[in-house]
């Protein structure tokens, strides 16, 4: 390659070869650190899975082998036959999907207004939303509980859903997205006789479905994994979500690790599937929301 082909930024650094070699060293160290971290993160999951496919006796014996002596799906059959896990699954699926759809539509609308419309108090409202972002849900949980109790929504899907519709980060990410769209697109759409709803749903959102997909995925995963609020809002087995329901597995049978782990694996399955299918989108989503926090 001729010297001309080297981009100027590289050409300016002296002795590029030494720089490359030191980068390689850093790269190896980073790779090792990443590998160790990945193994450390994966091990509990691995442990849960093999525990769930060991026979009860082997789990209790404390042999702690890395691979089951005998593989059995008894634990899975047991939780399917003896718990309400199917109902919990339906509850989780319905509430998570409704939360996701409602959060996406309402946040997109809210962010569009904050980003594109000029109305008194819009800066104040945005400040309040940013402030909400800093208040963890746990801090509001008593208020939510009292409110839902007064609305008589405890032990209903609505009661589980409503407090979880507050996801400021989705509004903030959407607002940043809309802010970044050149204003000519909105103007062209206005010349094309599109109203605000059309501009939002036919021009802005379709322009980059990636943003919506990413936000929908993190919202769905968040809703699926939510424990504290559904745990308080759903006290009857009929309205429990999966993460809440699996606590019942322990209560009913004493500490039965195999069955507990089987239900944990089942609970985590949808998130794992969503993650595997949309791996890139999830990473993008985490980066989008990290950009907000940074």
């Amino acid at each position, binding site marked *: 390659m001729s010297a001309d082909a080297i981009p100027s930024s590289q050409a300016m650094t002296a002795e590029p070869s030494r720089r490359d070699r030191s980068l390689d060293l850093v790269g190896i160290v980073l790779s090792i650190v990443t590998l160790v971290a990945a193994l450390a993160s994966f091990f509990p999951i691995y442990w849960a899975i093999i525990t769930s496919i060991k026979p009860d006796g082997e789990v209790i014996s404390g042999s702690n082998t890395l691979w089951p002596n005998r593989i059995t799906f008894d634990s899975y059959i047991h939780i399917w036959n003896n718990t309400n896990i199917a109902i919990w699954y339906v509850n989780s699926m319905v509430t998570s999907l409704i939360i996701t759809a409602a959060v996406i539509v309402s946040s997109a609308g809210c962010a569009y207004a904050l980003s594109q419309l000029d109305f008194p108090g819009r800066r104040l409202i945005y400040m309040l939303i940013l402030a909400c972002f800093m208040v963890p849900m746990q801090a509001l949980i008593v208020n939510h509980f009292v409110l839902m109790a007064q609305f008589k929504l405890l032990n209903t899907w609505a009661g589980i859903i409503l407090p979880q519709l507050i996801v400021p980060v989705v509004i903030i990410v959407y607002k940043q997205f809309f802010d970044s769209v*050149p204003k*000519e*697109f909105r*103007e*062209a*759409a*206005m*010349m*094309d*006789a*599109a109203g605000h709803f*059309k501009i939002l749903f*036919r*021009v802005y959102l*379709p*322009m980059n*479905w990636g943003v919506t997909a990413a936000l929908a995925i993190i919202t769905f995963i968040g809703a699926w994994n939510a424990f504290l609020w559904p745990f308080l809002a759903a006290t009857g087995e009929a309205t429990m979500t999966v993460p809440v329901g699996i606590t019942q597995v322990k209560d009913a049978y004493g500490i039965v690790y195999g069955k507990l782990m089987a239900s944990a694996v089942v609970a985590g399955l949808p998130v794992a599937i969503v993650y595997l299918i949309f791996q890139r989108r999830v990473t993008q989503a985490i980066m989008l929301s990290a950009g907000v926090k940074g």
Partner: protein
Amino acid sequence: MADIRLANVSKRFGAVTVLENVSMEIESGEFIVFLGPSGCGKSTLLRMIAGLEAVDGGQIHIGDQRVDHLPPSQRGVAMVFQNYALYPHMTVTQNMSFGLRNIGMPAQEIAQRVADAARILEIEQLMDRRPAQLSGGQRQRVAIGRAIVREPKAFLLDEPLSNLDAGLRVRTRVELAHLHQRLRTTMIFVTHDQIEAMTLADRIVVMNNRKVEQIGTPMDVYSRPASRFVAAFVGSPSMNFLPVAGITDVGGRARVELAGAAAIQTGIPTRELPAGNGLTFGVRPEAVRVAIEGKGMLEGTTDIVERLGDRTLAHVRLADGTVLVAEDAGKSTLQAGMPVSLTVDGTATHLFDVNEAAYHAAA
């Protein structure tokens, strides 16, 4: 088609006034160019006609309808944006039909109009592509197509050629002229490029610094600029400006004495000129010719020679140090450093007073 009338239109952004009492009448079918330096308010004025900027004062009429309070979609005008603003997620067909679908036009008529526009613009083979799959020139056509299908009363184009490379810009300019001849629809075209303005316009609106400097045909603006600003902005190379040492009257016409040099007889009526000093003499390079040595009105030394092929520009330093650009034939033998004589065509000269107002030879 309709005429467009602006009456005392003003625009403020916060405390800054960007347009003040702008008035003009645009005739139906005219090709009007807003010409001026960057930041003078051309785009703002166009966007006010389009309805994308609110009007802070004055009125805008399109045809016999007052439009300054109507939303953009109800003004019957179509806009082509500088960056085209094609919807990136829609195909060319969808881009062109979006506006028609929004007004509830029957699908059959939409298809017909889109097909017609595609044929006129020769983009039929691109109709299923998305903007990212098009070249700059193709995007530009699609943007024009999106405007054409609306069958607007007027096209508003904001620097539509500025994102094209030089060769394509010239070709597209010619095509735009053809399109105007074919459609005969009013077009308002914004540019800071005086060649685009000269070549395309029926009339040019020269703007500067919050106001309209001159409205006139290209030749009017070129040969009878209304102000020193217009004289300097239009024409390339730019007009020569020299300080005037004194004026004498010769048969009703002004004879201009230049500092340290000969006098030049102009065709400008003396009685129109203001009393007092501070006049500036203006002459375009094409009216200053290189003469046989010793036979000219002005003597100087050649500083720089620019060969353009068809003609040669000579930057000539006069005795008092001022530099004048003169024209010579393409095959000129001039060299830098050579002494040179110049003749000035007195009928093509201008005078400007301290307020930059212009005085020309009697028509």
